């Protein structure tokens, strides 16, 4: 999963990467400062900080928000998400490709024409070729990247994953004509999304089959910035890429000359440093504890962004009492979302849906389970499951155990015997995603990989995806009719019709209540007063090329 933060001392730090903010989601709050500050100014050094090393500075391996934030500034794929906030930022536009791909063969073949004269940064200094793209995708399989799951739909990828010899037959790159074609085993509208996330960013052919985060020679950029220095646990320096020239309006030049990142500042420390003017920008959220105080003292410097996130408790539909629909519905009725939002410091919006509304206008909020304890108790009585033992799983990063304890109290109120089990976050996700781990109720926080309904519905609720280990359908929800609809929706091209299908599925699945969704989190940030151009994209988060410093 895309982790919400670098692995820092999770159990101890009050850091709570789960931070959010109180303003209404979907407002794209980040742009206010741009509007007030007038025309962007070029130049200057952004002084930034991060609490721990970013996971990887290797596009093939990075699977955390901090890594993607950095790589958005340095690297490119064939496509990218529009560098904008809110639903507009979910639109896919060409990047290294000259235009959107030609789709043929009934949605099974995507043919891209690539831009000439895009150069890799020093020391490689040569043009980016279609063969580099093919190399980059194949490299994922050779380095056991967490991203291979996105690309196994390419013909021949399965075989290549086993043998790791001879290349993926379904990727046909032609450097002479500057084209590259992808042949899929079956139609998949989401393929465009997969080509816009950092796993598909281009690295030069010949890049070694290992993490290049600390290998300066191979840490090569195509975008406006490049990494000039990285010393783990100390600092990262990002400078302008001398070989970069702007090729579309979606690949901005960038205003800053340099980004100097120190590693190891705790959130509390960073907040004080920003307040004292020693720091411009911090990777992580405002600690929930500090938000009220900062907001009161520095109202114009606190920004709250809606994340494409769903936070929920799963109900394992294979484990009694949750095999019973009435029980699952009862718990949804008995859960007061406003109580849970309080536990999360009021930083987010309550929800009873699967897909977050920040994904687009199509995804309007619906409230299928208004709080109704009497009805819940009656449903439990009808199910005849009262008195059973229920284990609620949570990880130990504050305030998640508190939310789990609230769920336990809800279950107790309904007549069950609830216990809570906490695991450290580092092992929690793997443990709940194996059948042996076997939770009955478990906390899940799902940050999108790409801004599309499929990432929420298909990935987490398609019964055909249930596996023994690495299971993403953690509630083991399996309804053949729903599965068929999901498969049909996946094959559809991106657009309004497809969105409507996800909305319908959201409603139908929630009627069966495999989850207790309760929160769409927001991301509160605290920045220097002279920092502008803060644009929060749901996938890349805040984008460095948009930022600028006023004098």
């Amino acid at each position: 999963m895309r982790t919400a933060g670098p692995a820092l001392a999770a159990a101890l730090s009050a850091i709570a990467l789960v931070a959010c903010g109180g303003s209404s989601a979907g407002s794209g709050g980040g742009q206010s400062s741009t509007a007030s500050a007038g025309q962007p100014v070029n130049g200057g050094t952004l002084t930034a900080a991060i609490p721990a090393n970013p996971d990887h500075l290797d596009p093939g391996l990075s699977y955390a928000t901090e890594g993607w934030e950095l790589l958005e500034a340095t690297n490119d794929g064939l496509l990218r998400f529009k560098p904008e906030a809110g639903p507009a930022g979910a639109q896919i536009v060409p990047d290294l490709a000259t235009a959107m791909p030609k789709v043929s063969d009934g949605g099974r073949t995507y043919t891209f024409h690539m831009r000439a004269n895009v150069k890799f940064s020093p020391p490689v200094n040569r043009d980016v070729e279609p063969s580099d793209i093919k190399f980059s995708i194949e490299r994922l399989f050779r380095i056991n990247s967490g991203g291979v799951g996105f690309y196994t739909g390419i013909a021949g990828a399965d075989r290549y994953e086993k043998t790791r010899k001879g290349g993926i037959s379904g990727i046909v790159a032609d450097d002479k004509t500057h084209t590259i074609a992808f042949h899929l085993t079956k139609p998949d509208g989401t393929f465009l999304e997969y080509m816009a996330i950092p796993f598909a960013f281009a690295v030069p052919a010949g890049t070694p089959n290992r993490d290049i985060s600390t290998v300066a020679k191979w840490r090569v950029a195509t975008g406006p910035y490049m990494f000039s220095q990285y010393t783990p646990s100390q600092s990262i320096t990002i400078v302008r890429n001398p070989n970069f020239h702007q090729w579309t309006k979606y690949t901005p030049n960038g205003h800053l000359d340099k980004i100097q990142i120190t590693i190891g500042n705790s959130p509390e420390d960073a907040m004080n440093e920003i307040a004292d003017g020693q720091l411009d920008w911090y990777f992580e959220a405002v600690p929930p504890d500090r938000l009220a105080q900062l907001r009161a003292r520095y109202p114009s410097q606190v920004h709250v962004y809606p994340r494409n996130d769903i936070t929920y408790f799963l109900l394992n539909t294979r484990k009694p009492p949750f095999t019973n629909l009435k029980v699952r519905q009862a718990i949804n009725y008995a859960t007061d979302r406003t109580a849970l939002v309080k536990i999360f410091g009021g930083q987010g919006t309550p929800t009873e849906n699967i897909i977050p509304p920040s994904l687009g206008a199509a995804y309007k909020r619906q409230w299928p389970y208004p709080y109704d304890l009497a009805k819940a108790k009656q449903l439990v009585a009808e199910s005849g499951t009262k008195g059973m033992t229920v284990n609620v799983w949570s990880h130990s990063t504050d305030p998640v155990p508190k939310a789990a304890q609230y769920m336990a109290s809800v279950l107790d109120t309904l007549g069950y015997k609830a216990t809570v089990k906490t695991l450290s976050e580092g092992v929690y996700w793997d443990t709940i995603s194996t059948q042996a781990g076997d939770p009955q109720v478990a906390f899940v926080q799902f940050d999108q990989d790409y801004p599309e309904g499929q990432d929420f519905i298909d990935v987490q609720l398609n019964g055909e995806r249930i596996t023994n280990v690495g299971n993403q359908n953690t509630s083991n929800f399996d309804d053949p009719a729903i599965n068929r609809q999901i498969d049909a929706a996946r094959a559809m091209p991106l657009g309004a019709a497809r969105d409507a299908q996800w909305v319908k599925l959201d409603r139908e699945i929630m009627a069966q209540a495999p989850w207790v969704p309760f929160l769409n989190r927001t991301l509160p940030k605290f920045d220097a007063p002279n920092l502008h151009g803060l644009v929060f994209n749901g996938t890349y988060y805040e984008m460095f090329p948009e930022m600028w410093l006023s004098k």
Partner: protein
Amino acid sequence: MSVQAPQLPILPDVTPAEPGVDVGTWRAAWRRLRHNRAAMAAGIVFLGIVLWCGPLAPLWVHFVSHRGPNVQNLLGTISVGGHRVPVVSAQGTPIGPGLRGQYLLGADSNGRDLFVRVLYGGRTSLTVGIASALLCTFLALLLALPAGYYRGAVDRGVSGLMDLIWSFPVYLLAVAISATLIVGGLDIGPIKISSSSLLIPIFVIAVVFIPYIARPIRGEVLALREREFVEAAIAHGAGPLRVMAREILPNVAATTLVMFTLIIANNILVEAALSFLGVGVSVLTPSWGNIIQEGYGTIVTAPWQTIAPGIAIMLTAISLNVLGDGLRDALDPHGSGRTGGR
């Protein structure tokens, strides 16, 4: 971590007590202890803490707070100075302390009564502290008595084991063991311990601190073994078990009692540390360490949740340490050979 030696105050004398410690000796010691005002005050404080956390806690809940330690109240309100205020604000900030029956020390993030939780948390912390101290002392005696009695190979084996545990980075090991146990629980043959069981911290803490008790006792036993009354017992045909139980054990009882008192204080501190690191007592059971751990995330907006249980821990540990000090003085009036550490 250095809970190692430092948190065990002055280790008692390693020279053995006079042979034949009898009722008279204990009575004399009690007389001396009674005249040690600091120790008596500490004993009373400790007794008070035990009373408050034990029998008085349910009474407080029943007659005053009307809310048990685990009753949450995220959406309720409470009357403060004639106004209704929410127990937990919309931003998740719980109400602070105030002179009233309910929420005397304020609420925690789930709207539970912090004062009641500190009382019940004390039950857990004292249980873990005392139970692990008992287990630790028992295991230490089990190792130290034969080592000192048989000497030779047995002694070398036990001493080697002690050296080994002694050299371990204690906290790292305790944390590592707890972390893994909490994921899977323990399931070896007939022994099944659920991952949320109190037995896990009790067991881990007990094992790790065995050397602190076993080493000085082994020293005493070694010296006692040379004494005439022990040799005489053996010459009269008493078996090793009998000699250890009847002749040696009573003579190390004083040291053991002092060590036991001191290690309870130590273990309460260790429990708090483990819970703070997230590998101690399971979250549904309040313990002082747990309450601090939960409160730490909101120390800026709700500092009392961190501060109050910490003060409770300090009070308990101080009272036990002073009491232990007094006990040692009472049992060893000459106060010779007070070497610290090993």
